[in-house]
């Protein structure tokens, strides 16, 4: 049987890899890809805690379903913003998107 610690370390590693992608990449779409990896790591955590701590009621899985819905909404709006910026400014580099910088 796999102990809980394996899942927690796995999801921590996945989260940190995603964080590196968010911090290091120039392309805004690549940053969103990193955010997807981080979100997946958090959902693994939710499901692992549900299974190991309190598996009989389904609250943990219901929580994970909500996170799925929020992740789908996030990626749709994020990619729409990137495409809109691409149309107007012809760039997807996060450093060049500074119109709201004061």
């Amino acid at each position, binding site marked *: *049987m*796999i*102990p*809980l610690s*394996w*899942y*927690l*370390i*796995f999801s*921590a*590693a*996945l*989260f940190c*890899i*995603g964080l*590196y992608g968010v*911090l*290091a*990449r*120039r*392309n805004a*779409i*690549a940053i*969103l890809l*990193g955010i*997807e*990896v981080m979100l*997946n790591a958090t*959902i*693994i955590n939710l*499901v692992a805690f*549900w*299974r190991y*701590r309190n*598996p*009989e*009621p*389904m609250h943990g*899985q*219901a929580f*994970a*379903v909500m996170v*799925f*819905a*929020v*992740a*789908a*909404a996030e*990626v*749709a*709006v994020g*990619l*729409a913003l*990137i*495409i809109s910026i*691409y149309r107007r400014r*012809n760039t*997807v*580099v996060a*450093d060049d998107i500074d119109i709201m910088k004061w």
Partner: protein
Amino acid sequence: MTIEKIIFLVIAAVTLGAAVMVVTARKLIHSALWLILALFGVAVVYGLLDAGFLAVAQVVIYIGAIAILFIFAVMLTRRVMNDTDSQNNQYWWVAAPLSVLLFGGLTWMLSSWQGFSTELPKLTPEAKSGMLKQLGQVLVSPDGYVLPFELASILLVAALIGAIWVAWDRK
């Protein structure tokens, strides 16, 4: 070393390797394709955790919708960024040790928690087979999560309409 541990280790290695390729691949389309492999690995992990519904939802929503959306977005915007240019910003050398440091910190913090090596609670076969029905009931019953569930649907519809409006070409 049981068979489950071996499966978990193989899947974890594949998923982490694919995730590293997602954040380091030079061509963005390759990043998106590696993301599909990483998402498949995560789906298998849900399966190992007895969350069959989430494993299927992962394949349908993440791989079927989100990853394809990413591939379309990459194809729509690919002319602007040359694949031969550096894909990292000037601070990437800070980001790498910061991520490693965060991983070390998280592992240290978790290992000092007494529930860290909790063993898997045994479930009867009836409990396992009734899980899907229970999840469906808890999501739509007034005692359960019907309100958050409906809110999530409204959020999703609003976000998709907003995405269409934002990305609309008004010229």
